[in-house]
């Protein structure tokens, strides 16, 4: 398939707020169930092992008008909870049999409570994750959380979830993470061949497609993008950070690229890249998922840093690993985790002599001229005035 066709398919999935792909998947066999999840991370392996489809709900984007959602949150709060409520109250999420709200911030925690009140016929769970990384403390807590979740999902699915079921699902998700790692490595190597606006759509498709299909799609895109002759531009290489929950509008990503930046790493959909490397298949699968979370998972503002001196290390490492020349902090307005962490990260970058710029957005931001100008002048300053 040509790259344009793959991107068009992903674009259609991205724009489809009635989630037709999920409806089609459910309709393909009787009794199929789907479970939604919000950013940043849930162990999708458990949903998959129960034979259900994990569906990422990452807000309503810039095509959804929020009317009812504004009655549930103050207007200054970030937009993702309001647009998610709008999706729910307008029946667009009726196809979901359950919903998981991971531990990100107070706003999303409150959303889980609202969901329980509003949608009493659905399975709703606030999924707590450890902030202590010792196996005997945070690990014990987390394994128990995973066990409870597995049992509840099994009940929802109407079937038992064995350790072997879970191991098979872990293997499938290991493969998906490998495919996505290949995509990120390829983009960093040849960002002109795999523009982030396309990479983003390919990733977004993974929120609604079965994981096996998504892994295949990612690899198809990689092959098609590599075969497409595309001109290389003299752009600045940047890491984009802070966009791990409410997503920026696609036009914002396009604007940053158009302004002269190649995005070589980002944190758009951390759920796909949360666990670093393969989760072992031997042994207790819940223990393995727990150890992966505690010791081999991504760093982000919602995750507690045990040692103060570790703050910002992964960001600096990402800059070095992907050969970036600067960092763009792009966070949603009112995103407490991202905006409170930003000054600390900027302090670390300053110490390492890594240039940065920062702005805020909402998922329905429409005015791109100021962002283009800011990203463009940032790219110019890197290209013309940074030390070689």
């Amino acid at each position, binding site marked *: 398939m040509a790259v344009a066709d793959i991107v068009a398919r992903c674009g259609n999935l991205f724009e489809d707020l009635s989630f037709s792909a999920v409806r089609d998947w459910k309709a393909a066999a009787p009794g199929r169930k789907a479970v939604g999840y919000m950013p940043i991370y849930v162990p999708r392996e458990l949903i998959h092992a129960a034979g259900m489809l994990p569906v990422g709900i990452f807000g309503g984007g810039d095509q959804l008008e929020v009317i009812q959602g504004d009655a549930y949150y103050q207007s200054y709060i970030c937009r993702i909870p309001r647009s998610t409520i709008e999706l729910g109250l307008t029946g667009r999420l009726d196809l979901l049999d359950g919903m998981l709200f991971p531990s990100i911030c107070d706003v999303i925690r409150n959303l889980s409570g609202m969901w329980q009140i509003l949608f009493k016929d659905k399975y709703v769970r606030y999924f707590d994750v450890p902030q202590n990384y010792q196996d005997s403390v945070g690990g014990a807590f987390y394994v128990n959380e995973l066990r409870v979740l597995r049992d509840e999902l099994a009940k929802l699915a109407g079937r038992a979830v064995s350790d072997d079921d879970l191991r098979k699902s872990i293997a499938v998700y290991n493969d998906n993470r490998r495919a996505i790692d290949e995509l990120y490595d390829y983009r960093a190597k040849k960002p002109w061949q795999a523009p982030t606006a396309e990479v983003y759509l390919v990733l977004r498709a993974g929120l609604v497609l079965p994981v096996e299909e998504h892994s295949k799609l990612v690899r198809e895109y990689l092959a098609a993008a590599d075969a497409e002759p595309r*001109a290389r*531009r*003299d*752009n600045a290489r940047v890491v984009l950070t802070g966009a791990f929950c409410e997503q920026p509008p696609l036009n914002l990503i396009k604007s940053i690229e*158009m*302004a*002269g930046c190649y995005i070589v790493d980002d944190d758009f959909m951390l759920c796909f890249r949360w666990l670093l490397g393969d989760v072992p298949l031997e042994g207790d699968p819940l223990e393995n998922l727990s150890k992966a979370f505690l010791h081999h998972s991504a760093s982000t503002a919602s995750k507690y840093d045990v040692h103060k001196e570790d703050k910002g290390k992964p960001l600096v490492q990402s800059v070095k690993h992907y050969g970036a020349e600067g960092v763009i902090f792009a966070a949603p307005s009112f995103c407490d985790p991202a905006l409170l962490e930003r000054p600390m990260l900027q302090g670390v970058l300053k110490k390492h002599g890594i240039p940065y710029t920062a702005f805020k957005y909402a998922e329905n931001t429409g005015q791109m001229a100021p962002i283009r*100008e800011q990203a*463009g*002048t940032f*790219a*110019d300053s890197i*290209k*013309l*005035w940074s030390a*070689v």
Partner: protein
Amino acid sequence: MIHTIGIDIGSGAVKTTLFRSDGSSIEWLAKRCERIRRRDPMELARQGFDEVLEEARLAPADIAYTATTGEGENVKFATGHFYSMTTHARGGVYLVPEARAVCDIGALNGRAIYIDERGKVLSYKMTSQCASGSGQFLENIARYLGVAVEEIGALSKTSKNPEKVSSICAVLAETDVINMVSRGIATQDILKGIHLSMASRLAKLLKVTGITKGMVLLTGGLALDAGLLAALQEELVTEKITGLTARNHPDSIYAGAIGAALWGAFRHGRLAELQSRVAA
């Protein structure tokens, strides 16, 4: 020795320049300026590219770097893109080395850019979305008054009793002008009033950038409007930034395209340096 091309796609015209540089010397080989007049700016960019090559008797393969600026982000054959203030700053110090600020007045907006002797932007301020400080507005008014665009500057300089118009909003300013015409105000006084209103905006923008002394170079499509230049000199006195002297240059309209071509040459050298380091 390398050749580079700069393409500045503005709201009203596409400007193209071709330079030869060898590290120590820079030679300007060719230039083109084409009014857009409802044509496709991307096609005009290609046309300008082809024409400067032809004039310099070069082939596309001889060009080491093609840089765009202005609205040229989507030019497919470009090597890289630079932002307008970056290129006008560099073009400004190329045209007038002692310039320490550039006032870029284009068809749709204006901006004041405070620069150093290398053409590095130190600070800048631009007009907001309203178009009353722009070339398009002035062109519209000239059309209403039945004056050719080329005559505006000379007519404005003959004014004895300028009538100031709104400097906030193009719609209000146009209403002001209609009222002036019906009140029988002389054409030159209306034009001078508009120039003073635009210059007042520019002087305020310059003040906000923090520059207090030195040469200000007018660039962009309105740079050669003698009436606007005279009005800006008056407004600099009104705003009490008398340490600034405003001037223009016959090639002011090319400042963006010049800056793009020269920054392109710089980037070409830097990329070669980076590559040789990687190879080593």
